């Protein structure tokens, strides 16, 4: 009954932080551009492959590779925002067109370009950490730490810096922000860039823990959306809370049932939360 629970909790929290990393970018893009960026999962996937080619093929140290991938995808995100998302800011239907179009495009390209067996990044920190009965691979621990660091960094940026304040202003009311002399376009490019960079890092970390497949983005985007909807779109603390909750569900439910049931329970939790709090746990109107 109780054996595995502690391990389960740790696994849950570990994977929860990865979900958070994916969700953060998604939440950022949503709150600034007002669109749900379904192609975020593909950016995550591409980011992972960039890390792979930099790290495994190019023999660049993993951390540097992560940075490179973050930069590349960040720039990519900015370009996307410029040519595609800026013109449809705040519109739901065109956003769906764009995002699904990109998803299909990137997946197809990835299948053709990175075909064959799934790629993987050999573990950067081999071995496991044992605390009592609980075992956790060092890679995962590293991912958790990265998650913590990046989340708090983003939090600080938004709370403390001028840019962050501008972002908040835009997320609340673009017109008003524009009237205050904030360059809305620049902010939205920036947020898209940061969001994509975060996705890329998350992808790279996942690549080192699990594996790289052209369709790995689907898993990520599903989790990411679930997290931000559960936590309340546009709230960082909400994303963290949501991520950890879903992580725990995935970590613990399989102990008493199947992996499928874990997914069902996860979604049901979200549905119920939405029915009680239509804007998510920490979301506000």
């Amino acid at each position, binding site marked *: 009954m109780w054996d595995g629970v502690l391990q389960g909790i740790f696994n849950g929290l570990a994977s929860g932080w990865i979900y958070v990393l994916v969700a953060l970018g998604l939440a950022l893009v949503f709150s600034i551009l007002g669109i*749900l960026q379904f192609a975020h999962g593909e950016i995550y996937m591409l980011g992972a492959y960039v890390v792979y080619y930099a790290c495994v093929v190019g023999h660049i140290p993993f951390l540097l590779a992560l940075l490179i991938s973050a930069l590349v995808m960040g720039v990519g995100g900015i370009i996307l925002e410029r040519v595609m998302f800026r013109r449809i800011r705040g519109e739901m239907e065109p956003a769906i067109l764009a995002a699904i*179009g990109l998803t299909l495009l990137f*997946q197809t390209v990835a299948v053709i370009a990175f075909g064959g067996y799934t790629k993987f990044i050999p573990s950067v920190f081999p071995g496991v950490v044992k605390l009592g009965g609980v075992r956790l691979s060092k890679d995962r621990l590293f991912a958790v730490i990265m998650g913590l660091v990046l989340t708090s960094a983003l939090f600080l940026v938004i709370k403390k810096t001028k840019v962050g304040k501008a972002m908040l202003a835009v997320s609340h009311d673009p017109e008003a922000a524009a009237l205050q002399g904030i360059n809305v376009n620049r902010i939205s490019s920036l947020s898209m860039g940061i969001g994509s960079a975060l996705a890329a890092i998350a992808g790279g970390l996942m690549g080192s823990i699990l594996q790289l497949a052209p369709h790995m983005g689907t898993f990520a985007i599903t989790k990411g959306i*679930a997290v931000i909807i559960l936590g309340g779109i546009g709230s960082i603390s909400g994303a963290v809370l949501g991520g950890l909750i879903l992580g725990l569900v995935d970590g613990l439910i399989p102990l008493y049932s199947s992996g499928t049931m874990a997914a069902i329970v996860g*979604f049901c939790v979200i549905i119920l939360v939405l029915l009680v709090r239509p804007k998510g746990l920490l979301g506000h109107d």
Partner: protein
Amino acid sequence: MKLGRTKGWLLFALCVILAPIVFRNNSYLLIVLILCGINVIMTSSLRAMATVGQMCMGSMAFSGIGAYTSALLTLKAGFPFWAAFPLAGLVAMAVAAIIAFPFVRVTGVYFAMLTLFLGEVVRLIIVEWNSLTGGVTGLTGIPPMGAISLLGVHVDFTSLLPYCYFVFFVMMVTLIVLYRIDRSFLGTTLAAIEKDEDVSASVGINVIKYKALLFCIGCFFFGLAGSLLAHYMRILNADSFSLFGSIYILIYMVAGGRKKFSGPIVGAVVLTLIPEMFRVMKQYQPLVFVAVLFFVLYFLRAGLADLPDKIRHLIKKTHPGKAANA
């Protein structure tokens, strides 16, 4: 050469009547037609929901419910298709009715996500509920539609041609019903809800009730579509009702253009045909689909159904320009 509304509908009806006859010797094309029909039903119902400002991203969940209902009824309970088919719609609608009132209170992107997750839950339940749905193995050997003899006329719908006509018949009924709702004064009321819920409430429109109503109507037709799908495929599993299916239906609607009633029809037909037309491109085929989506996104924000007007507009614009050059 502006195509009047009535002319357009006549043309559409003509295609619907002639196409199956023309392709009667090629089962593949008949199946493509059937797919088009089913997708038109689903997409138009989705638009009906959208007219009250609800983006449903779980449509496949309900067609899944419909499909499994009629499949199980005919397979295990020995119902005739004729009983199972309407029941499929009704069961889907019943499920919708149960969840409608809490659901429609959620608005905007949250509603979309709510339905998206619902879709996943339904799919996973289908997977998990082995004893009833055959789990991942799914159901095989679903009986075909079967024969019917009315006033001496005996038609066997097992073969594809009559089945295709049946699908088109259902499609036409769906379209007429939705068209009536859309064009009637009731439709105006519904449109008002999407435009401004406060004003609607202030003139006494029961927003929640109408949203729930439209949700149920849409799901009824989703259910029927699912049943049609089940009895032509004759083999079912959860994969056919994944969230991508729902998203595709949504894409059909958006790409077709939601403003016009004809939008979803055009969208569904065109975007169903494109992957079939470009089969020869194998794994590159999605790129064509993507190209179409981006084309719509950049040049046809009002949707594919708006293309004729657009072209006419362009011609109008270019001609004086030529005159100036001359």
